């Protein structure tokens, strides 16, 4: 969807630099995304309305709860394979809609899991021998104990007496062992609002979260699942509210492999990896991008400079490694070094370059860099400018065709394309649509017959900031200008904020948090930024509107 929008921006032209009525004045100035954020200590962030677990988080939660309940991961995984998780909808953090499929499918999965966990061979593992023995005297204790222990982990906080009564009623008047009754209790617990949502009441009028609420926030942020025993313990004894304990917990969470998996979602959303066109190299290209990000976040922690200048290949598969001219990476050793100067940084890799066909897409590349990596707004096109391309040209390079199409002086298209979009894309014309390096572009006629070649031109004035007229000769120099501008760091900080809090950022209200994230990224690198979020009031507190 977004890729379509990007292309539409380009093809319908781009508006004059005056502010359209629907845009705030500062938004109307292209290429003016902030490089730092003003912190107004008195500003209050937008309130959060009852956030829903993503279905990834819900799946992970049920997986870990099942493993915890059965005490045997292999056994639990065999059970989980039958739970029908595959029917759960796929969603993203920023998509907080509640639709019928969420409700229907989560209850169906909860029922299925309830039935599986209470099968005769598992009931004792789940609730103890008392759930299957013939001793009627322990039945009531058995049920109550199960509700209290399993319920606490399912709801992610201890149950109070009222909670216990509510779930005890679900079991039924008769406390004698009943798989169906236990299954019902499990179903309701796993479908309850405290399971499916981040239900947060806070502890006082100062908006502080309870230790259990904080534990959940940390755990779901860094691991996409419910708190483990250590975090639970820190919540239970209240020590999690202590700064040093919290910091130690964050360190522990970040050092766990689960953090890598969780941050895959951050990186995928930031780079819109789901929009990479299909093709044979798609999966290896996505894997390489994620490996590269994980490497500079966790394995060799570094900042955005390493990310955008690295000359190491993270291509694991033969085919992609062959495109790069290096041996495949085994995933654990030091990654191979690429031919010098040929592919510096994240933007010279297949995930970004591939277009689904041989043709490069400089407009799409330019819009992506402008919007996703620099966080610049592109002014809307004037109304009704038609999306009509010229007849396809033969005998000219892609750059020449695009220039002819979009940069004619005096046209509505030229303002944005000539100065803000195309130059960013042209810097990558040294790579075709399959990600292969090239100095010349092969040309074909309408029938596909070869017409010869023309040299590609990667020299541009990218205007990373509006006043910067520095020339860039290819991706390395463009990356240097982007790094020098500070916009890469500010933009990534904004993306991380959105990921962390499941809402869009607001520079006026969230300036303090954004600046802390940006600053930590700038000074300490990617991993430091991930850690910093736990120090923010936005993560430790919850504000309530009436």
């Amino acid at each position, binding site marked *: *969807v977004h890729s*379509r*929008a990007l*292309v539409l921006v380009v*093809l*319908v032209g781009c*508006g004059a630099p005056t502010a359209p009525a*629907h845009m705030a004045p500062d938004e109307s100035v292209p290429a003016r995304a902030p490089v730092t954020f003003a912190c107004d200590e008195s500003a209050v962030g937008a*309130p959060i*309305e*009852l956030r829903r677990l993503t279905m990834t988080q819900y799946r992970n939660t049920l997986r870990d709860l099942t493993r915890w309940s059965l005490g045997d991961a292999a056994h639990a995984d065999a059970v989980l394979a039958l739970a029908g998780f595959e*029917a759960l*909808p*796929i969603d993203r953090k920023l998509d907080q*809609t*509640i*639709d*019928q*499929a*969420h*409700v*229907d499918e989560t*209850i169906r999965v909860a*029922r299925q899991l309830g039935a599986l966990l209470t099968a005769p061979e598992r009931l004792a593992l789940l609730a103890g021998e008392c759930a299957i023995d013939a001793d009627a005297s322990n039945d009531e204790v058995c049920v109550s104990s199960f509700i209290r222990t399993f319920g606490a982990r399912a709801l992610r906080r201890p149950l109070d007496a009222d909670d216990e009564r*509510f779930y005890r009623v*679900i079991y*039924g008047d008769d406390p004698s062992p009943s798989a*169906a*009754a236990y299954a*019902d209790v499990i179903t*309701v617990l796993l*479908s*309850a*609002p*405290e399971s*499916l949502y981040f*239900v947060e*009441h*806070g502890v006082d009028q100062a908006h502080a979260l309870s230790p259990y609420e904080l534990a959940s926030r940390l755990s779901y942020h860094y691991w996409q699942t419910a708190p483990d025993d250590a975090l639970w313990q820190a919540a239970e004894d209240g020590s999690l509210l202590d700064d040093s304990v919290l910091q130690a917990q964050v360190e522990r969470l970040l050092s766990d492999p689960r953090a890598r998996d969780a941050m895959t979602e951050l990186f995928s959303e930031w780079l819109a990896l789901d929009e990479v*066109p*299909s093709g044979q190299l798609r999966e290896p290209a996505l894997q390489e991008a994620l490996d590269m990000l994980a490497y500079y976040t966790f394995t060799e922690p570094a900042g955005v400079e390493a990310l955008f200048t690295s000359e190491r290949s993270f291509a694991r598969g033969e085919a992609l490694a062959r495109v790069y001219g290096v041996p495949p990476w085994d995933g654990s050793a030091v990654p191979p070094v690429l031919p010098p100067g040929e592919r510096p940084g994240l933007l010279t890799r297949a995930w970004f370059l591939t277009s*689904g*066909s041989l*043709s490069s*897409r400089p407009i*799409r590349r330019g819009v992506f860099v402008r919007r996703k990596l620099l966080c610049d707004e*592109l002014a*809307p*096109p*004037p*109304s*009704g*400018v*038609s*999306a*009509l391309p010229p*007849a396809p040209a033969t005998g000219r390079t892609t750059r020449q065709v695009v220039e002819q199409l979009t940069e004619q002086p005096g046209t509505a298209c030229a303002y944005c394309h000539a100065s803000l979009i195309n130059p960013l894309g042209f810097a990558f014309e040294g790579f075709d649509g399959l990600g292969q390096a090239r100095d010349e572009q092969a040309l074909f006629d*309408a029938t596909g017959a070869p017409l010869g070649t023309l040299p590609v031109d990667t020299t541009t004035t990218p205007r990373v900031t509006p006043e910067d007229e520095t020339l860039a000769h290819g991706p390395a120099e463009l990356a240097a200008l982007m790094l020098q501008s500070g916009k890469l760091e500010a933009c990534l900080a904004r993306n991380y904020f959105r990921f962390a809090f499941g809402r869009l950022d607001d520079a006026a209200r969230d300036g303090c948090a954004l600046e802390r994230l940006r600053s930590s990224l700038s000074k300490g690198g990617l991993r430091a930024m991930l850690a910093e979020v736990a120090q923010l009031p936005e993560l430790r507190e919850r504000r*309530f*509107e009436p």
Partner: protein
Amino acid sequence: MKRRVISLDRRQFLVGASGFALSLPVLSSLLPGKAYGADPILVRRPCLYWLATNHGGAIESSFFPSTTLTESQALFSDHPVAAGALRATLTESITAISPILRAPRDVLSERRVAQLNVLRGLDIAFGIGHHSGGHLGNYAGNESVGGVAFDAQSEPRPTLDQLLAWSPSFYGEHAPARERALVMGRRAVSFGYSSPALATGTIQNVRAAESSLALFHRVFAPHDSPEAARVPVVDRVLGSYKRLRDGNRRLSAGDRRRLDDHMDRLAELQRKLNAAVPVACAGFAAPSGDSALHVSPDPDDAVRYAQLYNEVAAAAFMCGASRIAVLGLSDDQRFVDFTGDWHADVAHFWLDPGKQDLIARSYQRVFADVFLDMAARLDVDDGTGSSYLDGSLLVWSQESGMSTHDPVSIPIVTAGSVGGALRTGQAIDYRRVAHPDSRFQPLTAAAETFAGVLYNQFLANVLQAMGMQRTDYERWGHRGYGLTAVEHAGTSLPFAEHYRDASSRYFQIASDPLPFFFQG
């Protein structure tokens, strides 16, 4: 009279299912002969199937019939509307209404031609650009970034499938046992309220079923019979939400709204669990494939993908399990052999003969293998002497007109007469032909066309054919269904001159019957 519903318990279902689990084909002879017609309560009600394809870009001379339009009626004194019977040319093996609207003779029979309509000259009156919800009236579901289309993003409304699904005028007390509307395919075309039962809250995309087989099981498999002695578990779940919603623990107003939305969905689930699958549905076997397994960019795979959804929708219509289905096809489903970026390499180059050929061949396959496939599935005696197709309406809409991204003269193909409410077998041209204020020349005079009437009016006619009254769908004093807005002057689109403004004559008639189409 009390509604007559025959319910099956799990055991009965399994006994019945054992046969068709072995994949007996769906045979009309298996259907109850008097399922609806003989029952004054379960009288046949119209079904709506909507096939939405993106881009458009089919040049008009390829898409529309060259049939001589013999009838004319003045919409306004300076705007005649023309119509004529669809004429097919026959070769040994092919029936052709137009270069695109052609199919093998056994697929596009004389009978089928008489059940179709081809409508020309329906416009969305602003540059909506790419959209997904526009097919069904949510013009806010667009991806434009400027002009009226951008402003429209702040005025979402449900798509008409969701409006129908939750309207008492459509289902009334006969809401289906499982799915009010089958939302299918990879293109997000359906939008509804976050609280649909109350028609309140935000407008959000209605998630499409990603697997036709899972959808079939959702629609046709009866729920497990609850243990008689136990309170249904969904009631208990609902209780857990009420308890939090109404309890003493601190929540924000926004939290409560979200809980309300969730409880609405629980109530809908409860309703579905308490309803019984119509007994006629027991005659349908699970499809022998699953759309989720046919997602490669291969033309045959694309056809199979769509037909598997058709199979579920047709079965649901025929047995009364649902009366609405929408299928959104995206351009990464390739109905012709093509590798690359369809949007950038083909759709934008619709004037290039080679690319136009790809577009035309692609749409020809959609018509012959998807749209007519659904028509054929429903052209079965419904027990009253007419067919399910005759009692229904099938619509195929495209995202744009012949000029990719431009909503001028969006081509529409329909099938079925909704029990005679619609005339069929016609080509109808609503364009204001030859009038200079209505002229649209995308790039070249060779591709000239004209603005006609509002797409809003077509949507309103569909709603009326489905039994809706104006009061059921008109909002804010505006007629028709869809946004009331016109692209302003100074654009290449002809709308400012033709439609003038939102109070102009075309908006005034936007709920009126379309000439030659709707006969009530």
